[in-house]
């Protein structure tokens, strides 16, 4: 018995939907104009959210391209006699610090870094570029493999070999179209054999060309070119992204101990976590998205008012029909339901068309601008549910008005 009744109800609902659909189809232009606001509203929600997510993804990618799970340890600033210098001035970080960090639980690999601008010469060509001293783990930490040739290995770092791996921009400037592998270049008048060329990395988030670089073993850099015993920075790769926070505190504790810093004194180094930077960038992208989405939500609201307007007109126009239905036995709730279903179908249909429009806009943006937009299911579902709610909310007053009509007066209406 129960299931039979349920079937009946389900079937009745389908009938109601079909009837609403037919009614709306009879007045195609008007129905379309009515839902135009919803279409534009939902379309702009989908488009703006896809732009926001695309932008956030782009920021994420650009930060990841510097190496995910990466931490950077920089020497601290000095504060002598009240004059404070900036970061990276004190010679507090050494390679031994890097070797010690390597033994920590959350740390996967490390690389001391020492960078310096130098002129590089190959035959008649010269090019001034960044010479970076690094460990053999550089490719892993920066997620930056070689395109051809090889990267230098541990032995070459230990023995301070005169080998170099060249970035794409520096290679093009020096060698043109010739493969740089196997050639001898002069850095600081010292001959280096080019053993590899890095893949193209592009610009970083701050607009620097990351490919304008020559990477040599950190030991070679310290002994033969810079002549120092300290490094500019230590790059560390944590085991996983979650481990970055743990690694940060482990490194801080270890270095404070190694540098004999008493508890009440500040550290003479800084540990920077790239995830933090990524989060800051993401949160600004999220703010942007919320701003755009709220503008879009206002237009959805305006669309809802458009629906209410037309539904009120429609109720007035169909007074006679309402009278007939009431005479035949329609209750208030039947009339209410009929018009609510109509406005809901209308706005949901507007929502579906709006999703289509949003897709079109976001793919147009993707193809005409460098930004790659991303459409996810979440905003689609949210805006469809929202447009359905708009239909029910703004359809309620006209439907309520219809349901309250007096059958005698409604029948008399011409």
């Amino acid at each position, binding site marked *: 018995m129960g299931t039979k009744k349920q079937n*009946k109800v389900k*079937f*009745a609902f389908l*009938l109601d939907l079909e*009837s609403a659909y*037919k*009614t709306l189809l*009879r007045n195609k232009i008007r129905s379309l104009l009515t839902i135009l606001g919803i279409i534009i509203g939902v379309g702009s929600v989908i488009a703006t959210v896809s732009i926001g997510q695309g932008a956030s993804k782009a920021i994420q990618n650009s930060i990841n391209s510097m190496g995910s799970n990466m931490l950077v340890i920089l020497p601290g600033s000095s504060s002598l006699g009240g004059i404070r210098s900036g970061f990276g001035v004190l010679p507090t970080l050494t390679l031994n610090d890097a070797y010690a960090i390597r033994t920590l639980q959350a740390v996967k690999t490390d690389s001391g870094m020492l960078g310096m601008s130098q002129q590089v010469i190959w035959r008649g060509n010269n090019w001034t570029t960044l010479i970076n001293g690094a460990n053999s783990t550089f490719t892993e930490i920066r997620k930056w493999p070689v395109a051809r040739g090889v990267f230098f290995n541990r032995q070459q770092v230990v023995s301070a070999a005169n080998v170099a791996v060249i970035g794409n921009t520096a290679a093009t400037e020096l060698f043109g179209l010739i493969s740089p592998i196997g050639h001898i270049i002069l850095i600081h008048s010292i001959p280096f054999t080019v053993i590899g060329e890095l893949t193209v990395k592009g610009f970083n988030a701050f607009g620097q060309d990351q490919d304008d670089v020559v990477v040599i073993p950190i030991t070679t850099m310290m002994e033969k070119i810079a002549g120092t015993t300290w490094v500019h920075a230590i790059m560390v790769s944590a085991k996983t992204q979650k481990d970055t926070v743990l690694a940060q505190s482990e490194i801080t504790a270890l270095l404070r101990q190694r540098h004999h810093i008493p508890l009440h004194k500040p550290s003479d180094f800084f540990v920077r976590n790239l995830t933090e930077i990524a989060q800051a960038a993401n949160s600004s992208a999220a703010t942007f998205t919320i701003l755009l989405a709220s503008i879009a939500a206002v237009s959805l609201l305006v669309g809802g008012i458009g629906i209410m307007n037309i539904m009120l007109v429609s109720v007035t126009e169909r007074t*006679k*029909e309402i*009278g*007939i*239905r*009431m*005479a*035949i*036995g*329609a*209750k*208030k*709730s*039947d009339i209410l339901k009929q018009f609510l279903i109509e406005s809901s179908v209308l706005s949901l249909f507007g929502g579906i068309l709006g999703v289509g429009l949003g897709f079109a806009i976001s793919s147009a943006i993707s193809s005409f601008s460098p930004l790659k937009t991303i459409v996810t299911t979440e905003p689609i579902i949210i805006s469809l549910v929202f447009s359905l709610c708009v239909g029910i909310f703004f359809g309620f007053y006209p439907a309520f008005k219809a349901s309250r009509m007096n*059958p*005698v007066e409604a*029948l008399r209406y011409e």
Partner: protein
Amino acid sequence: MNTGNDYDINNSRNSGEPLIRLENIGMIYKIGDISYEVLKKINLLINKGEFVSVMGASGSGKSTLMNILGCLDKSTSGSYFLEGKDVSGLTSDELAEIRNKKIGFVFQGFNLIQRLSILENVMLPLYYAGLHSKDAEKMAFESLKLVDLFEKGNKFPNQISGGEQQRVAIARAIVNDAPIIMADEPTGNLDSVRGADVMKFFEKINGERGATIILVTHDKNVAGYARRLITVKDGEIV
């Protein structure tokens, strides 16, 4: 006093009781400060199976009487017993249910819903009664067969003649097996040939189905189909 809440719409017919009993039904309209007494203490009995015509000039109150009899409107005083139960105190939804199950309407202007097919129009009372199955379709087709429009079910109101539209309205009125059919100037928009054709079907459903027919008209020829004539004048039955 019956508040109407316990009104059982499906109650078995009380054999001793007339189908319709009006007791001192009065209707006063108030427009601003002025009151119009449209009906004055109407008393009326109509038995099951009767074919009654109500005549009267416009403004006589016959339309108001018709609306009250059809449970479309509520009187301002008096009691209306339908199948022995007082319906004068019922809510608008309860009245809607009575209209759905007990009363079929045929109007002067046919009052079909243009957007719906003939079959769907006839099925509409069943829809509001909660019937949506194939049975409802079968009932609607049977109704259409009775008015000789079995083959026009899939057409739309604007595709058939006025006389046919009025026959569809009759089919819609009887589809729920309503004991009362109220017809308000059913031939008013038709020529005499088509009108006579429509009246033939009222006679048929009165004779074959035993439906009680209450016909409002000011056409003496049409009123002549009825076996009892009620004349309303100045809000009273004369």
